[in-house]
């Protein structure tokens, strides 16, 4: 997903520094050209890697849960936890939650593989990684060889059910930063995993989180020790390759007191006629004065124009601001998947803690997205900020669903929500569903929402200046999303902008 860039982005919004200001202007002008190049591109990650894989037998049962746990040589406590989750999940029907504004045929949980791993994997150094895999990531724009790697970004590459490589591990380890696959963390740092796994998203949290707890395969683990500012962006790149396989990854990030980390997540999958399930869980924990910035560019295969195929993305992401003055920021750019169901949330427990949610959700053709956030204010003087930009085109449907809850003890809590929808064409739909529950009279909650359309006048004006229709749409949409694009790390911002153009291709006659 990411590209190396010589120039790091300058901070926005600090006035009175001419150099920085000029960079911002230059960048603004540069952005549009980036889109230019890509607007006519189709889903370019749709290829399949031909590699021999180990599969678990098809279907889901207690034996499969044991199989996965055994494959990973897990300790008993973890197997027990998985089995508890599995039994609970069975007792749920299995019947998925029905409150979201999405519709899809019934998922047959027995008609999928819950574990698929390239045969050649195992703990090894980068030099030993299967060249087919290296080539795959190369093609996706993620070179894994450290010589060629992206400046300033360490990558954990997850391929179907396993992590196949993690770059810059040694460099990070020298500062005490742990960045590895969660399977490795279970082996190498069991005390940390045991302490925090399920502490933010308990196994009983919701249908998909429960399923994930039973069958999660791999994902990333991050621990930033006290007072350390992680010197690189950490990134996980999720790739679904095998057919009829679900991806159930689990990510756990712990920022100890006074530490700081920026984490990026990217995802792609081959183009297939079948729907594939992706049900991930991400847990973040920020202790006193710690800060976690979590950015996602989600570009799972969205299905074709008629709505055939594509990923079902049912994801639970939650961060706990446990410490005083801690901060968690979620930024997401959701362009892919046939269905997106996710609500990255913050539990603002520590006094003066801050939660942020910045989101761009684009749906085109027959895509459906029901996404938003939850901000739970528990501590005193906690504050949260939500900026959601929904863009719908084609026959798609996008729903923003957001909850702001202020508990009685949250004196002085503040929230600002800005929720904007942009419609392209007459056949799409956008919905805004805010839930506001305040049980402390001192709380200050603001909610603003707008809905707009790209007008024919705007398109004609752009076209009369030589800008083609699709480029004009991309330009206007990027402008609409600017507040969110600005908070993405530079590497992702550029990619995200291009994606905006690509995802809306063909949206205007």
């Amino acid at each position, binding site marked *: 997903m990411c590209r190396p860039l010589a120039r790091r982005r300058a901070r926005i919004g600090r006035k009175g520094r001419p150099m920085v200001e000029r960079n911002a202007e230059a960048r603004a*002008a540069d952005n549009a050209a980036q889109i230019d190049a890509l607007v006519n591109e189709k889903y370019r990650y749709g290829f399949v890697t031909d590699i021999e894989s180990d599969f678990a037998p098809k279907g889901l049962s207690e034996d499969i849960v044991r199989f996965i746990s055994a494959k990973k040589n897990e300790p008993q406590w973890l197997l027990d936890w998985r089995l508890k989750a599995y039994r609970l999940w069975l007792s749920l029907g299995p019947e998925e939650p029905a409150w979201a504004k999405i519709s899809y045929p019934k998922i047959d949980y027995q008609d999928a593989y819950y574990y698929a791993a390239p045969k050649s994997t195992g703990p090894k150094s980068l030099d030993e990684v299967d060249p087919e895999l290296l080539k795959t990531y190369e093609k996706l724009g993620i070179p894994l060889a450290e010589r060629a790697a992206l400046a300033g970004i360490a990558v954990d590459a997850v391929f179907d059910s396993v992590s196949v490589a993690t770059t810059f591990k040694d460099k990070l380890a020298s500062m005490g930063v742990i960045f590895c696959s969660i399977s490795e963390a279970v082996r190498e740092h069991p005390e940390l995993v045991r302490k925090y796994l399920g502490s933010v998203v308990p196994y009983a949290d919701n249908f998909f989180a429960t399923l994930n707890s039973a069958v999660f395969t791999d994902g990333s683990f991050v621990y930033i020790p006290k007072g350390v500012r992680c010197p690189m962006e950490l990134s996980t790149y999720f790739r679904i390759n095998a057919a009829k396989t679900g991806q159930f990854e689990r990510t756990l990030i712990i920022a100890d007191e006074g530490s700081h980390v920026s984490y990026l997540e990217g995802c792609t999958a081959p183009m297939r006629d079948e729907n594939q399930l992706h049900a991930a869980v991400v847990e973040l924990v920020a202790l006193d004065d710690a800060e976690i910035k979590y950015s996602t560019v989600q570009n799972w295969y969205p299905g074709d124009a008629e709505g055939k195929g594509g990923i079902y993305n049912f994801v639970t992401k939650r961060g706990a601001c446990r410490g005083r003055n801690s901060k968690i920021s979620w930024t997401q750019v959701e362009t892919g998947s046939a269905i997106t169901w996710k609500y990255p949330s913050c539990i603002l427990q520590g006094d003066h803690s801050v939660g942020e949610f910045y989101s761009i959700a684009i749906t085109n053709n027959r895509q459906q997205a029901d996404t938003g956030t939850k901000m739970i204010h528990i501590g005193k003087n906690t504050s949260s900020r939500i900026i959601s930009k929904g863009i719908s085109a084609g026959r798609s449907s996008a729903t923003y669903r957001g909850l702001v809850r202020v508990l009685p003890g949250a004196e002085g809590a503040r929230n600002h929500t800005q929720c904007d929808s942009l419609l392209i064409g007459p056949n799409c739909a956008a919905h805004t569903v805010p839930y506001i529950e305040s049980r402390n009279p001192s709380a200050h909650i603001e909610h603003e929402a707008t809905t707009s359309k790209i007008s024919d006048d705007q398109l004609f004006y752009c076209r009369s200046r030589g*800008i083609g229709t699709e480029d004009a749409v991309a330009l206007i949409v990027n*402008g609409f999303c600017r507040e969110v694009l600005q908070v993405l790390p530079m590497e992702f911002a550029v990619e995200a902008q291009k994606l905006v153009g690509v995802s809306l291709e063909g949206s205007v006659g």
Partner: protein
Amino acid sequence: MLEIKNLHATVDGREILNGLDLTIGAGQVHAVMGPNGSGKSTLSYVLAGREGYQVTEGSVTFEGRDLLALKPEERARAGIFLAFQYPVEVPGVASATFLKTAVNAVRKARGEKEYDAFEFLKLAKAKREALGISEEMMKRALNVGFSGGEKKRNEVMQMMLLEPKFMVLDETDSGLDVDALRVVAAGVNAMRRADRSMLVITHYQRLLDYITPDVVHILSRGRIVRSGGPDLARELEAKGYAGVMPVAAA
């Protein structure tokens, strides 16, 4: 350079232009004047290719090509520019971003090298300073919250950067204060070249005091009813439309 023959155009089924003829040679400046609602902006939109402006009869030839067969963006790339009477607001898109995208789209179509951000800003700086447009303004969303005069100046800046061959200025003078009028006119005059023509739509002589036209046309009810030299505009100023129009048209 541009030849309009027997042009008929309808909007929402209503005929607005009916049998308009106009030929503009290379390097010439033609002024079009006419009462409100006579079809001046309609003509400019037809030339720019706006949807909904249906040509039912006649032809427009630009440098020997059938202009009407081209899409709006293709016309712009071929060198047609319309300075809008009412520039459109584009929320969220910084003026600089918009301009750079437009300039590069046109340059690309001409087989010229696209500008990178720094080259573009350097180029834009000279033009915007000539027009008294601040750097701050370039960062603001295009036309959003711009004053009437600021919008018009921005149109002229776009025109200067896109370097068209044929430009239509639809009441670019309205909304400008006296100083801005002088500055804008100077900018337009600086663009006059042997291979560049313009159609200047205006209600007032004062613009033509600065931009001296070769030919002045009076448009009424969708056709040109009288043409003459710069004196025609002065005559109009003195006598009003009733005084200058042929009896049959008035």
